[in-house]
Structure formats: structure tokens, C-alpha cells
């Protein structure tokens, strides 16, 4: 499969009053065309920071290290003509704002948890999509922009696309707003979509429809997708591969079936045991809370909460160790 994204040792550093913290610490992952990689983590795990780093949207003052290589050959998604720079392997880390603007929306797009806060409340839905298209192709005739807006809405399975384009976000249901966001994200034919908790704010029946839509788009357009979520049930449904993030580091990764079916890291095991299921069972919470980045333990970040800890765990952070094939866990027990 064609590699879309190759992240190597990505690190984000932020200066805080309590010193420099690393919300993302040496993260490596790859996403191929047509593949969904699930990134699982609780609040404070660094999952959203990682996404913002890839989009070049970090707060000012944040320092990014490592590499994030985008692309290979041109993709086939969307209706837009290929960007002039497409087909060249480029590092998103250290890329200038001007070049990033050409990449955002055009090659990598992002959708967020709460469409109501991401959409402009005083602009009609269609106008917001038109804005995204014009940002990349300013000279496009009105009729062509309009045609592409409708096409984008139809691609996101928005019923009565012409009608909806004229409506304001508050006139749309939560599910339709998320579809409008997806339409906007895909309007300029990106090959990689970063979806940050895109269904968390939605009702389950609507969530299901949006997950189905994203899956159709992935297959139809050959999109690569980084799907960020705290919900193990959702990740099992959408992702082929999964990476579990804890305190800024990947602690377990591999094929979704193996990571979720035979987890090897005590944190992944703990998350599964703490997740309510439809069958009543004894929930086993993970004791304690996620450590503050300003007060990380010296060794494994999960050690203070781990029921299987050993003396060596407090000594140093273990490397990711291979379990089988692509399955790896950052734990001395492996």
C-alpha cells in the first residue's frame, strides 16, 4: 500500500510556568492510503496535540521535533487538480506557514469533535465550503465553486444538498453539521484525514451513520485516516491498526484485533477492563489518575497505577518491544 504519512519520533514541547513539558514524546506511526489508524488515549494523553502538530496548528511557542513525512505519489481523491507540489515527499515538521497553507485542506484535512464550534455561525454552510475551495483556487469561477460545493455536500451524503448549502449551522442537526464539516474537509481532495473524536458529541444512532460515511469515503476515495478517540468500542469498529497513547508516548500498537483482543500493556488491559460493555460485568477501574506532565514519574509513566509493576519499572521508560509481527508494547513484561 502507498504510504501517506510517516511520522518518526515526533515530539512537542511546551514552555509552562512549571517548566518545559512534552505532551507528545517520540511518537512514530505510519498511515497508508485507504487505511484507518486509530489513536486511543484519555484526556491529557497528547492525542489532540499530536494532531495539531501534524496540521501545523500548535499554539505559538510550541517546539516540534522529529519528522512527519507526507506523501509519495499523487493521490486520486476528490475533484481538484493536483497541487503543484504534490508527489514530493515533504516533512511537515519545520514547514513554513506559507507552504503549510497549501498542505492544509489540500493534502491533509481535519475534522473536530464539536462541529458547532468549528463552523462559523454567521455563514451559510455552503459559503464555508466555498471559502475552503477558494482558499486554494482563488480564480475559480462562481459557477464552478458552486458546483464543487454541491458535489462536496453530496459526497458527504447530505440530503437535499442545494437546500442545505443555503442554511446556517444552527439550522442543521448535529449529524448534518458533522457531514458539512466532512464535506468541507474533503472539498479540496486531501488524501489524509485527521478525525479528532468526530462522533463523541453525537447520539449513538447518528454516530453510527457518520462512522459508516467515513468508512465509505475511506474506501471510495482511498483516504488515509487518523482516527482519534477515547472510545475503544468506536476504534474497534473503524480502525485496522491501533496505537494507544499514554502521557505523550505510544505504549502499545498493532493490528486492532490483536491490541484490543490480546492487549499486552497493562494500561491497554486496564482501559478495556474499565470500559462498560453491554453485558453487565464487574467494572475494574484503573486506580489513580493520569499523571501531570509536569510531574511525570521517573520510569514508566504508568508505573504508579500499574497492578503488575516491578522494581525495574521505576528505573526507566521501557522501549516498545515486539510482541508478534506488528504488535508491540512498551512494557518490561513483554
Amino acid at each position, binding site marked *: 500500500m502507498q504510504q501517506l504519512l510517516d511520522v518518526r519520533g515526533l515530539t512537542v514541547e511546551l514552555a509552562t510556568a512549571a517548566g518545559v513539558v512534552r505532551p507528545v514524546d517520540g511518537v512514530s506511526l505510519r498511515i497508508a492510503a485507504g487505511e484507518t489508524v486509530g489513536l486511543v488515549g*484519555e484526556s491529557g494523553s497528547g492525542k489532540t496535540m499530536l494532531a495539531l502538530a501534524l496540521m501545523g496548528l500548535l499554539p505559538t511557542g510550541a517546539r516540534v521535533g522529529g519528522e512527519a513525512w507526507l506523501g509519495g505519489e499523487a493521490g486520486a481523491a476528490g475533484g481538484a487538480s493536483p497541487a503543484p507540489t504534490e508527489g514530493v515527499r515533504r516533512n511537515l515538521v519545520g514547514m513554513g506557514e506559507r507552504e503549510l497553507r497549501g498542505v492544509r485542506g489540500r493534502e491533509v484535512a481535519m475534522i473536530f469533535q464539536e462541529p458547532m464550534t468549528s463552523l462559523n455561525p454567521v455563514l451559510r454552510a455552503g459559503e464555508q465550503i466555498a471559502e475552503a475551495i477558494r482558499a486554494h483556487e482563488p480564480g475559480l469561477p462562481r459557477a464552478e465553486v458552486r458546483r464543487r460545493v454541491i458535489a462536496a455536500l453530496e459526497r458527504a451524503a447530505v440530503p437535499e444538498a442545494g437546500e442545505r448549502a443555503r442554511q446556517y449551522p444552527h439550522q442543521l442537526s448535529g449529524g448534518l453539521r458533522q457531514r458539512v464539516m466532512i464535506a468541507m474537509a474533503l472539498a479540496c481532495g486531501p488524501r489524509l484525514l485527521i478525525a479528532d473524536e468526530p462522533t463523541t458529541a453525537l447520539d449513538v444512532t447518528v454516530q453510527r451513520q457518520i462512522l459508516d460515511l467515513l468508512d465509505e469515503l475511506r474506501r471510495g476515495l482511498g483516504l488515509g485516516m487518523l482516527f482519534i478517540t477515547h472510545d475503544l468500542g468506536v476504534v474497534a469498529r473503524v480502525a485496522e491498526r491501533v496505537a494507544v497513547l499514554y502521557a505523550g508516548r505510544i505504549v502499545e500498537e498493532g493490528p486492532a484485533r490483536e491490541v484490543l483482543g490480546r492487549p499486552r500493556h497493562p494500561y491497554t488491559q486496564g482501559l478495556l477492563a474499565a470500559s462498560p460493555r453491554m453485558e453487565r460485568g464487574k467494572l475494574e477501574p484503573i486506580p489513580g489518575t493520569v499523571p501531570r506532565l509536569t510531574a511525570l514519574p521517573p520510569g514508566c509513566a504508568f508505573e504508579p497505577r500499574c497492578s503488575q509493576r516491578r522494581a525495574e519499572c521505576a528505573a526507566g521508560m521501557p522501549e516498545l518491544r515486539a510482541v508478534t509481527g506488528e504488535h508491540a508494547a512498551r512494557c518490561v513484561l513483554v
Partner: protein
Amino acid sequence: MGTAENLLEVRGLKKSYARGGGVFAEGGGVRFAAVDGVSFDLARGETLAIVGESGCGKTTLARMVLRLIEADAGEMRFAGEDLRAAGGEKLRALRRRMQMVFQDPFASLNPRMRIGEIVGEPLAIHEARLASGERRERVAAMLGRVGLEADAMRRYAHEFSGGQRQRIGIARALILRPQLVVADEPVSALDVSVGAQVLLLLQELQSELGLTYLFISHSLPVVAQIATRVAVMRAGRFVEVGAAEQVLARPEHAYTKELVAAVPAG
């Protein structure tokens, strides 16, 4: 109506709002039934979960039970007493026997008050004659019971994590030893590992203190862990009510089936 085992009995409860109303609305008179004739019994010590999607009326129902909003029609009896007709001292006395735990532990705690004051406030209102030393002791004991250190009393809400804040909210709800606790999405704003801690705490407190829960949630897996009975609500009405295992494992109503099928399997 009126069996001793039932702590709460609700019959034909209704609440409607003007749709697109307001001073400048044209036409008018169109009303939207948020709760459209709901009846149920809540037995002492049980947990009835009300599940449904956003806008189904579950929160309106919960607030009517607590008399935070007034019903348009219907009957409510709490421990045999007419809850809808109660007013003044009577209502005040009934209210201290029912408390609420809110969804958002970030929005529901006063940021300018110390935790000791937040948890002790219901005592200051309902047991004003309590000596301050005794009040402090009861607050400290309750904080300990929900798993917080006694020094939490002197701190402010922002110093606590989401899970700890939810424990503070639970301590405040339980300080008056209520019989009924209405919990509105108490774990949906929390991380998975922390949400499980709070669910278990609610279960422990229930059996220890003999609490009766009305548990409002959109999440079937969460409800499956805690509910004795489940009522599925849609468009202001209960479409299916029954024992939790029955409703969740063998749903009968088409809408319940749809909800169950939409749950992502872990």
C-alpha cells in the same frame, strides 16, 4: 398508587413548551411536548435508568421529579406524599430527601467556594442549627467516604481533576442523607478509567446507604452496569420499560433495537 416499597410514583407526567415562541413569533400556539405522559414507579433501593438520545425529554423529566421545573399535568408521590402539590416548608422538607448529581463537574461547582463550603452548604441551609465543628466533621467524613483526602476541604474546585470533582459533587448530594439521587449523565464527561471509578463508587454508596437512583444516560453500556430497570425514552414517552438485562439483551421495541444495534461493540 401508594405501595410502601415505592419511593416514587409518577403518573401521566407532562410538560410542553411553546415551539418557536416568544414575543415576536407569528401564529403561536404550537406546542412541543418535551415529556408527554410518562408514568413509572421507583422502588426503594433500585436503580431505574432512563435512556434516550438528545432531546428525548429525559433531563426535563428528571428536573420535574426534583421540582426544579413544574409539570403541566400528572401526579407524583414521594414516599406516599403528594410531591406536585407540596409547597413551602413541605416542599423544603421533601427536597432534602432528594438530591441531584450533575453531568459536568466543571460547571456545577462554584469556583469561588472552598470544597468544604460547597459540600457543607446543604447542611448550612437545611441543618442551620448544627454547630460549625460538627458540620466540618460531617463534611470531612463524607469527603473521606467518596475517596477524597480531608485537606480537600480547604481547596478550590479548579485544583481537582474531573473525576475528583465528580466525587465532590456526589459528596454534596449525599451530605443530607437523601433517599433519592437523580444522576444526570454522571460519568459521560469523564475518561473511561475515571468513569468506571465513579460508577463503582455510586454502586457502593447505594448499597451502603440504601439509596434509590434515577439514572439518566444516553449510554447503554453505562446503563448496563448500574441499572436494575431500564426505561427507553423517545420523543417524550417511554417506548419500553423492563428489567435491565431484558431490555438490553432482548429489546422488543424497534427503537430500542436500533439503539442497541448502534452501540459500537468493543
